[in-house]
């Protein structure tokens, strides 16, 4: 990534802001970032963020005056809404946090690896330029007690396993409860069914290849910069024809 991730910190407590700053500094080697500003209250944060475009806001929830939830709601109305990562000492707000479109939810005391993980999730979006991030194009997953929104752009494919559906990104795999059909209906333009048990992200699709499996020829789907090919079922072979036609 050429440009460092532009970060803004909002917390009413000075030591909490200082800790985030030093964690970000420590992480700069692994993920280039730059703290472009900070604020001690919601009103100051909104005033500053109307002037300067940032990639991510690290946002405390419990603050005097306007709380972090309200700040997040206001930020979502900006022309270039930044990614919001909540940073809080309380886990009681997790569900409402995602209702206001937060990308992640960190519990204090924040650990460097966890912060880095959260920032990495934002980075690809930031990297795609100034194009506004389409709101809501994300899939919600449960992950070890956290609720996360995985942006659709990061999804490689979704696969139905025996009792659940797995979502694969370049970094890792998530498990979700929603059936493939529901996801296919929700994102008809983004997700393409290539098999009864598999949806791929059209944006990640590189092409198709005929492979010999035993005595038979089978189509497989190839993804961009991804080693594993995904089998295409005969029933779904028409997608290859559509792909050929663009």
């Amino acid at each position, binding site marked *: 990534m050429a440009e460092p991730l532009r970060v803004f910190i909002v917390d*009413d*407590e*000075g*030591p909490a802001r200082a800790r985030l700053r030093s964690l970000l500094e420590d992480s700069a080697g692994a993920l280039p970032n730059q703290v472009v500003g900070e604020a001690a*209250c919601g009103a100051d944060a909104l005033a500053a963020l109307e002037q300067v475009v940032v990639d991510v806001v690290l946002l405390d929830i419990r603050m*005097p*005056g306007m*709380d972090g939830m309200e700040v997040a709601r206001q930020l979502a109305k900006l022309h270039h809404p930044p990614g919001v990562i909540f940073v809080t000492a309380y886990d009681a707000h997790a569900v409402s946090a995602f209702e206001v479109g937060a990308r992640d939810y960190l519990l204090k005391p924040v650990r460097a690896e966890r912060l880095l993980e959260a920032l990495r999730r934002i980075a690809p979006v930031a990297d795609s330029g100034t194009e506004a991030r389409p709101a809501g194009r994300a899939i919600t997953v449960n992950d070890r007690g956290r609720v996360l929104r995985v942006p659709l752009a990061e999804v490689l494919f979704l696969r139905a396993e025996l009792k659940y559906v797995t979502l694969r990104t370049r970094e890792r795999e998530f498990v979700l409860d929603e059936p493939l059909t529901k996801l296919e209906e929700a994102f008809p333009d983004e997700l393409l069914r290539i098999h009864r048990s598999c949806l791929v992200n059209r944006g990640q699709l590189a092409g198709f290849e005929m492979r010999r499996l035993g005595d038979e020829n089978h189509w497989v789907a190839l993804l961009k910069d991804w080693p594993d090919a995904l089998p295409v079922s005969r029933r779904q072979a028409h997608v290859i024809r559509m792909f050929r036609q663009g």
Partner: protein
Amino acid sequence: MAKELELARAYAEIEAIRLGDRLRVVWQCQPEAMDALVPPLIVQPLLENAVYHGVEPCESGGEVNVAIFLRGDQLNLVMRNPCAAQSRRQGGNRMALNNIRERLDLHFDAEAEMSAYRSGGEFVVQIRMPYRHG
């Protein structure tokens, strides 16, 4: 009482690191009252309540007033903090207040009194107990 205040001041110093100049504590402690024998953990929990409910929710912070003085053979402790106009913070379960009341009753029976009330934008806790000293 001197030890009680030492603990409360140490706690206030920690909160001051967190809250910066939003927290202001005014101590009005009569030196003659410092040798009073009091049940442990009376002052600090009250101060913590005052910070949590009175100072933290307020953007510009607030002042907590701690007054300790003798009146005749009675020791008085009065703590005041601002009441946030419309605090989003829940009222709490009054655990600290109930615990303190219980300890006062155990030590002094009916001879100690405690009251907690709102008055003119402030929350006030008043404790009166017999002055006993070592």
